[in-house]
């Protein structure tokens, strides 16, 4: 190796790239193992995936110093394609953790919805590998490729429900819009490359302001077009049309995955671009992002407000629209980064994203459990959940209050406070006001849902659940150990198994994990809020 040190061949720091690599290799392993496993034992694939993701998260440990880089240019300016710093680590943790929770949720959903196991796990892990690669990418090419690695498997995941028209329609919609966005991004990247002659973010940032004045328009257009594709990933308005349909059509864990990991990837890309590559063009993207944030949160919250609880899929629709609204809050500090202190603003976004990931996946986990019990996924199905399944109701209530930002969901409140603070510090008073109004709108529908959980159940449900409620009241969710997961695995071939209201193991673990994380964060918000003061990039 020493021979090559001065040559044109780049050295590879395998330890640094371990997290995405392990995820990708596990995906391949799952795909291959699928060929050799008899149908009855396909459940093992899920646990392979969970183990792989856990291993990938463990591989973050040796990197904690955050001072590694690899794929560096051996000649010319010092620039690296893959950098491990604190920002990378946090986002990788978020992406892999989110994927892990999704995998846990899917261990029950895959056999139950008769999804092809090998393909599912391969696609999920590939997408997770992309999500882990993206925050480390420091050149435009890697960034775009990573984004595509996140999204391409996601299209397939959305459409994986065989014979479901809604599912394939959602996948097609998602695919077409996403591909358009990617094409636009690529065009933007090519413009930026044409102006600066480099794809490395640091070099771009250096050369973009000093570019030939005659290329000014080209550079500006390039900046805007590049950002569009990433804005699409965060489901910012007006690139949000795919969200409700896609979430409804996708298997529920996948919807949760898209809302957290997919969104974080887009967001991480946006952060890298605006802070590292285009800091000189803040007069272009800062106002744009501010308007985008305001539009996104308003549209999302108003649409969520208008969901009728009796409609089919209203629960998933509401979660979808609320996730659009939350994306708006996530964008606020980015808009503030243009005017104020970028490091602190980015920190606010990261803190909020971490909170949102835990809480939203938790909400999806409970919804996954519930929708398995009654497939119409109406909000009105949640009426009286407390009577039928107290622990699930308490967990969901907690998550919804976190999303709303009310005690006992303290972390949701402080997440909003740091975002709000970022807006105020950057003198974006109007955006702060819009945000406050939106928080109030969101309060209404989150609270309505929460209140519904604790209302007395309707006649029909009481009759149906009478036999279950007695056993559930006592047992409930107490970790993975007791109560072998009933039905779904063994009954995969024999049509939809009749679910009791009990948690499947994977769902139980993910609900327990998210609840514990949520409570820990609410008790000690400093765990994530410290990013709002420290420097990440």
């Amino acid at each position: 190796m020493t021979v090559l040190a001065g040559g044109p061949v780049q050295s590879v720091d395998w330890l640094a790239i371990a997290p995405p690599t392990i995820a990708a290799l596990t995906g391949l392993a799952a795909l291959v193992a699928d060929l050799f496993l008899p149908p009855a034992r396909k459940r093992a694939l899920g646990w392979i995936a969970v183990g792989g993701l856990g291993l990938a998260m463990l591989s973050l440990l040796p990197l904690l110093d955050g001072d590694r880089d690899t794929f560096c240019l051996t000649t010319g300016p010092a620039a690296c394609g893959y950098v491990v710093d604190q920002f990378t680590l946090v986002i990788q943790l978020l992406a892999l953790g989110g994927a892990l929770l999704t995998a846990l949720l899917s261990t029950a959903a895959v056999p139950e919805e008769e999804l092809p196991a090998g393909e599912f796990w391969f696609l999920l892990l590939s997408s997770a590998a992309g999500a882990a690669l993206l925050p480390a990418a420091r050149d435009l090419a890697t960034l775009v490729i990573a984004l595509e690695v996140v999204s391409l498997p996601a299209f397939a995941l959305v459409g994986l429900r065989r014979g479901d028209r809604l599912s394939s329609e959602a996948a097609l919609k998602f695919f077409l819009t996403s591909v358009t966005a990617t094409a636009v991004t690529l065009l933007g990247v090519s413009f930026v490359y044409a102006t600066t002659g480099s794809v490395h973010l640091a070099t771009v940032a250096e050369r973009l302001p000093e570019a030939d004045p005659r290329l000014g328009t080209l550079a500006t257009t390039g900046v805007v077009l590049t950002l569009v594709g990433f804005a699409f990933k965060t489901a910012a308005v007006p690139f949000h049309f795919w969200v409700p349909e896609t979430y409804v059509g996708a298997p529920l864990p996948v919807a949760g995955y898209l809302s957290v990991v997919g969104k974080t990837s887009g967001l991480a890309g946006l952060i890298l671009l605006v802070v590292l590559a285009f800091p000189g063009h803040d007069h272009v993207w800062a106002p744009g992002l501010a308007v985008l944030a305001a539009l996104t949160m308003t549209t999302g919250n108003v649409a969520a407000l208008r969901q009728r609880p009796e409609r089919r899929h209203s629960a998933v629709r509401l979660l979808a629209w609320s996730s659009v609204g939350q994306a708006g809050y996530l964008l606020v500090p980015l808009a503030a980064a243009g005017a104020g202190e970028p490091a602190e603003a980015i920190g606010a976004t990261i803190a909020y994203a971490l909170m949102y990931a835990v809480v939203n996946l938790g909400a999806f986990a409970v919804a996954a459990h519930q929708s398995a019990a009654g497939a119409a996924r109406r909000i009105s199905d949640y009426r009286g959940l407390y009577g039928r399944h107290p622990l699930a109701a308490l967990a969901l209530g907690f998550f919804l209050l976190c999303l709303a930002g009310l005690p006992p969901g303290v972390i949701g409140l402080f997440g909003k406070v740091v975002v709000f603070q970022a807006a105020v510090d950057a003198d974006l008073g109007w955006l702060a006001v819009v945000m406050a109004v939106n928080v109030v709108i969101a309060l209404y529908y989150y609270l309505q849902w929460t209140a519904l959980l604790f209302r007395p159940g309707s006649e029909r449900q009481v009759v149906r659940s009478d036999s279950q409620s007695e056993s559930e009241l006592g047992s409930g969710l107490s970790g993975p150990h007791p109560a072998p997961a009933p039905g779904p695995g063994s009954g995969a071939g024999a049509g939809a198994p009749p679910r009791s209201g009990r948690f499947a193991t994977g769902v139980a673990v993910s609900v327990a994990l998210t609840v514990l994380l949520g409570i820990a964060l609410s008790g000690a918000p400093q765990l994530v809020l410290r990013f709002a003061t420290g420097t990440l990039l």
Partner: protein
Amino acid sequence: MLPVDDTTMSLLLAAVVLLPLLGSAAALLPAPPGLRGSGPEQAVLRHGVTVTGAVLAVVILLALAFDHDHPEAVQAETDLSWIPALDIRIHLGIDGVSLPLLVLTALLTFLCALHGYFRKPQGPSAQGFVALLLLLEAGTLATFAVLDLVLFFLAFETVLIPMYFLIARWGGAGRAPAAWKFILYTLLGSVVMLLGILLVGLRAGTFDMVALATDNGPDAPALSHAVQLTAVLAIGLGLAVKTPMWPLHSWLPDAHTAAPTVGSVLLAGVLLKMGTYGFVRVVLPIAPDGMRTLAPYLAGLAVVGIIYGSLACLALVRRGAGGDLKRLIAYSSVGHMGFVLLGIATMTHTGVNGALFANIAHGLLTGLLFFLVSGLKERTGSTDLDQLAGHTGAALYGRAPRLGGVLAFAAVGSLGLPGLAGFWGEMLALLGAYEPAAGLSRPLFLVCMAAGAVGTLLTAAYLLLVVRRVCMGDPEETPAVVPPEASVFPEPAVPAEPAVSAEPTAAPSPSERAWRHALPDIRAHEFAAWTPLIVLTLVAGLWPAALLGLTDPAVQHLLPGVPR
């Protein structure tokens, strides 16, 4: 004063906040062997009594150990860093303003738990009931004990959830809409309040109430007038919803009418005080300039509330109006809290002391009144005045003399008879309005004072009418429902002629006669629950210095530079 060192004091205060919180979680667990009692329900209700009793004991210990020579100093202080990123600290402490409220809260919650133990709450599960009650206690105690603005907000919000469920799950008719209205009003108010708190905290650079209060002396205010004005508007709005100030009060009558007894007692006795406490603790010292600008408006609205509350009560107490006693007491609360707000709006020591005194007095008397009304409902099955009173009156004096006597005592105390607790607060509030702080328009406050004085007359009128209709009357009369539409105009009383107008054919059955005659008088557990309230009413009325000696130095400390 007990000789207790500072560390123990702070531990005691921390225990006051943590005990009910832990007790609330423990209430959800099955009872440990040995404490099972006669059944799970009884065991958990007893658990509630034990925990609230322990909290009360600790609070009394704290009150005894409190340095009464320096009530203006923050005592039993704990100051820990919680979220360095936002500079939010766990800062607990008590002074002369918060100590009485702490005692009141602990006492009323204990009495409520006792009440629940003897009268099983009508609702889903006793476990949930006790857990919510304890959570409510933790939230209210924390509100009075914290000295950090953000923690204050959190504690303020924590109270909403248990109260919502107490109303929605254990309430009476119309509970679901009432509970929803309650939570929407107070939440919207709190969101606005949070914005105000953030504004203050981010502009001043700290959320610490003590630091903010000292920074914002009249000499060198840290916050500009515009910021203070906005902060007072925003924080004041949230507090005013809770107090409640006219015209933001309309959630209160519904919530009170629908709430179970325990909910009503705590709502009136403790929760409303959080609003006025916030004015004294947060708004007055932190944004005095903004408050000075807005004080006349606050005084005006307070006086409108006084008059409006009493007129509404007068309308409810009329024969045939179908007035509900709980609703009537709720409206009377609007009037009483009007006096508290008026006292605060004067920005004088006299007025604010009066406000704090009226706060405590209202907590004691309204708590007692709600207990009495629930006792009445247990005996007669109704709180509807017309149903209770019939033609001549419900005749409690004749049928249950002790109950009637205590009811009359509470009503007279509530109308502000000198010698009972209700008098001093309203008197001092009006006195403060006679000579408001410098910079406030004296003529306006004189008008407010005059209107408030008229309000005391109206208050006396409706409370005496309540006594007339509930306590007096002919014990021989059979109960006859007065058709509401038939008696818009008060009919001449038809003494001793049973059911002539209402049901001419139906002769009163023996059982009805028996109902009319025999009402069980005060039972032992009721006596035990009400005695502390009666005694404290008398003590506060006859020896006001006990309370004023605590609040006055603290108020002088919070309002520096004001001569009176």
